[in-house]
Structures are given as C-alpha cells and as structure tokens.
C-alpha cells in the first residue's frame, strides 16, 4: 500500500519562473493496483513519478510505502522498493555492459554490491529463463553488449530488469513513447503480462487515452498539478475515449483546448 498525502512540488521556487508542478496530491495506491495516469503536457505526470522515485526532492507532503515514510530517502535507497522504466530506452540499461551483467545488477537491486563475482553460473540459468519470455532471442546473446540492441529490445530488457526483483511499485513513464508502433505494442503486451503474472502494483503514465482505458484497473487524470479524475473498477471499464473527454470538460468546466489530448 502506497499513501501519498499532500504532496507539493514547485520548480524554480522564489524566481520569476516559479511553477507549481504538483499542488497537494493525495493518492492511495492499493496493493495490486495497476493505475494509468493521463493528462496534458505540463499536468505533472512525470513530476509525480520523479517525486515518487526520489529523483526530485519534494517541498512538502508524505510518501509512505508499506508503513515506511520514504519522503526524505535518497533516490538510490528508494530503489530498493521502487523500480522504474523510462521514456528513453537508453536510460534504463547500461550500454557498455553485457546483457547478463545488466541483469546481474538488476538482480541485486536493494542488496549490497560487494566483491562477489558479478555474474555467477546459476544466475545465467535464471536470466536465460527470464529472457525467453521476451521472445526476442536474447537468451542466446547473454554476453552481447546492450549497446548492440535496438531501442525496443532495450526497453523490453529494462522491463524485465525492473521486475526481476519484485518492487513494491513499478513506475512506467511513457515507456513506449519513443518506440515505433509495432514495437510499442509488443512492449505494452509484455508490460501487461509481467504485471498480471507477478500481481505487481504499477503506475503507468501514457499520452494514449485508448491505452489508458484498456490497461489497468484504475485511471487517474492530472491537470495543473492536481488529480481531477480518479476512476476504477466497473466505472473505468464502462468508459470510452469520448466519455473520458466529456468528464474532462465537466471537471474543468472549460473548453477543451489541448490538441495533445485529442491524439488518441
């Protein structure tokens, strides 16, 4: 269970460029929730994820994961509970290291990195088994450097790495946005498969409304640093892109302007 209370984040505080990116976010994520997050550009979606992961320090508020207040934890320490996949396929993996070395690092997430051998023989068996479910033939290329892989392959590998040690919550920040449509679909399928198989708790930011409705059991919409819509279960299942847009009008009470939102 992840409880976010009264989370506030301001950029360039005290300067003329001051932006209130998140204003008093309250969100309770139940165990097993798969939440899709939508909102126009600048709504605060990525900021929310970065604040959760610890990349940005927060101004005020609390983030509690399973009764542990992690609000002041540095990013590397939060990584013991949180794993993430970035929009940029290059960010989640280490290019010069081999596939098995990347997986070995992920397999030690949250554990000390001591002077034991980085990759051991029985690790390789595990990695091979795990890689097989990607259907990319990577299980035969354990020793290949990750820099040789395509963006889609790297993103699939990042997903696997993020779930190799089960996180309390998986953060996906538009992780298919930089991929071609066919690869994006494959990575999305894999995402759904991994989350369902391991009963993971996940937060997925997306710009694609159809995707946001198809995936997950809960949907939240951000606007101007606030959660303006939070639907789950049957209510979410019954929603269509049109009704979602309608909701947006209603809550905002203004003309729908952002053309990015219409790109479904």
């Amino acid at each position: 269970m992840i409880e976010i209370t009264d989370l506030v984040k301001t950029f360039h505080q005290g300067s003329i460029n001051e932006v209130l990116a998140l204003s008093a976010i309250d969100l309770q994520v139940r165990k097993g929730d798969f939440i899709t997050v939508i909102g126009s550009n600048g709504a605060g979606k990525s900021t929310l994820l970065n604040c959760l992961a610890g990349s940005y320090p927060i101004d005020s508020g609390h983030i509690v994961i399973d009764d542990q207040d992690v609000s002041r934890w540095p990013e590397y320490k939060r990584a013991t509970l949180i794993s993430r996949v970035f929009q940029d396929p290059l960010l989640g993996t280490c290019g010069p290291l081999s596939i098995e070395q990347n997986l070995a690092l992920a397999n030690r997430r949250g554990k000390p990195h001591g002077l034991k051998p980085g990759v051991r023989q029985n690790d390789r068996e595990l990695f091979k088994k795990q890689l097989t479910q990607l259907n990319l033939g990577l299980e035969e290329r354990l020793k290949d450097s990750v820099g040789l892989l395509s963006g889609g392959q790297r993103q699939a590998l990042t997903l696997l790495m993020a779930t190799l040690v089960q996180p309390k919550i998986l953060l996906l920040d538009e992780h298919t946005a930089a991929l071609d449509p066919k690869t994006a679909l494959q990575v999305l399928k894999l995402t759904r498969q991994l989350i369902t198989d391991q009963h993971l708790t996940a937060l997925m930011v997306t710009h694609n409304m159809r995707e946001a409705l198809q995936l997950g059991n809960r949907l939240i919409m951000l606007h101007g640093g606030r959660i303006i819509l939070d639907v789950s279960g049957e209510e979410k299942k019954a929603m269509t892109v049109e009704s979602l847009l309608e909701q947006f009008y209603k809550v905002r009470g203004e003309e729908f302007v952002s053309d990015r939102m219409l790109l479904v």
Partner: protein
Amino acid sequence: MTYFAFMGALEQGFAYGFLVLGVYLTFRVLDFPDLTVDGSLPLGAAVSAVAITAGFDPFLSLLFALLAGFLAGMVTGILSTKLGILHLLASILTMIALYSINLRIMGRPNITLLGQSTILEPLTNAGIGMFNAAPLLFGLFSTLALLLLLWLLHTAFGLAMQATGANQQMITSQGVNTDRVIILTVGLSNGLAAVSGALLCQSQGAADVNMGVGTIIAGLASVIVGETLFGCRTIGRALLAALLGSILYRLTIALALSLKLGQFSFTPSDLNLLTALLVVGALTLPKLRRKVSS
C-alpha cells in the same frame, strides 16, 4: 638506445604502470577527469621515503603509500559528490593541498634514500644487477595489480563501478549509491598512483615534492597510446593496453632522448613538448586510419 636505457624505460614503464591503471579507472571507467594524481604520486613517494628512513620495512611502506593515496583520492571524491564541486576543480584543489601536505610529511622538499634498504634489496642481494632487478620486480607487481583490477571490475562492485561511469540514472535506479562508488574508485585510483610514487622513489633513491608535475598528462598519454595501438574491446584488453601503453610511452621518450640528428638532440627539458606531440599523434591516428581505409 643502449641496453641500460631500454631497461630503464621498462622500469619506469612498469613503475608508472600503477598510475596508468589508476588513470584508466578514473578517466575511462568512471568518466571522472581526476588531476589529484599530480599530488598523490609524490604523496606516495613522501610516505614511503619517510617510512623507510623511520625504519619500517620497504614493502610495508608501499602499503602505507597505498593507504595515503587512497585517502587523498577519497577527499577529491567527497569534494565532488558530497559538496557538489565540479570534479575537475575538486581534483585540482586536492592536488594543490597535497603539495603542502607532502612538504609537511617530508619536513623538507626532498629525502634521499642513500644507504637505506629498499624493496629491490632482496633481488640485488641475490646477485641480480640493479638494472635488471627493478624492471623484473616492478613488472611482477604491476602485472599483479592488473590481474587484481581485472577481478575487481568483474565483481558486483566492479559492475556498479562501470555502470556509474556509463549511466548514473540506471545504476541509481538499481539501488546503488553512486556517491559511494565514485569516492571509493577515485580513492583506489589515487592509491595506485601513490604506489607508483613509492616505487619510483625507491628505485631512484629519492622522493621530491616536485616529482608529480605532469603526472596526469603522462598517465593519460599512456592510456591513449595503449588504446590506440592495442584496442579496448574488453576490460582485460583495455587494462593490458594501459599497462603496455605505459611501457611504450617510456620507451618512446627514451628513444627520443637518445636520438641524434646531426648537431641536434633532444634534452630532458623537451619532454613536455614530446609528450604533447605523442598524445596528439595517438589521438589523431585512429581518425587518419579511418580516412585512409575509406
């Protein structure tokens, strides 16, 4: 080049080999340009010389040098990570501070080891000439250091070290405290540089507060020359290339110094110019090669 000049170059190449392996760690693995070595190399020499004159075992003095260098490197790492000072500037700050510290340690600008025992004594006592003993022993030591680094870089910590240099965001999201990795790695690199200083002071018979000037350029030149000529496909290959680069660099210098063109010959004061030319050559050679082949 005479046999003595050749063996002398080998001796220097192996002695500086530690430094070059250290420079490889910071510049290439960690992507952290570290100039601290200009101060930690004479630090190692100073610590070793003072320890030997105080009656400590010469081998033990190498360990002291390693520890002193490690601490110096950690200071640079802490300045850079915890205090947020730009890495290059942090290393320069430690370097100039070390100048004063080295003078404090020695109590004067230089210490000679005349009549003192050194790590070469067991070999010379066994009847091996000084000119053969030093390259032999230093060669053995630097090969050992290479193998240790090869092992280290393949441990879990070593993988985290490599990832810290290549992709900090990735390794942070895997739960690694990159500050700690940087502090330890820069420490290790300077520990190696200090061992170089200790070996040099014992083979030359003196420690001098100014012996570190230009160390980083020599180290970098060796790494680049090695990479250009021997390649760096794998970690093992890159480490070997760095060590061979160190030897090649010293051989080139020795060769240049023994060169006579009519009335003209190089003097040791031309060394900086030669080094600069060598680095420029090593950096442009791969580009030229590509142009010729295409």
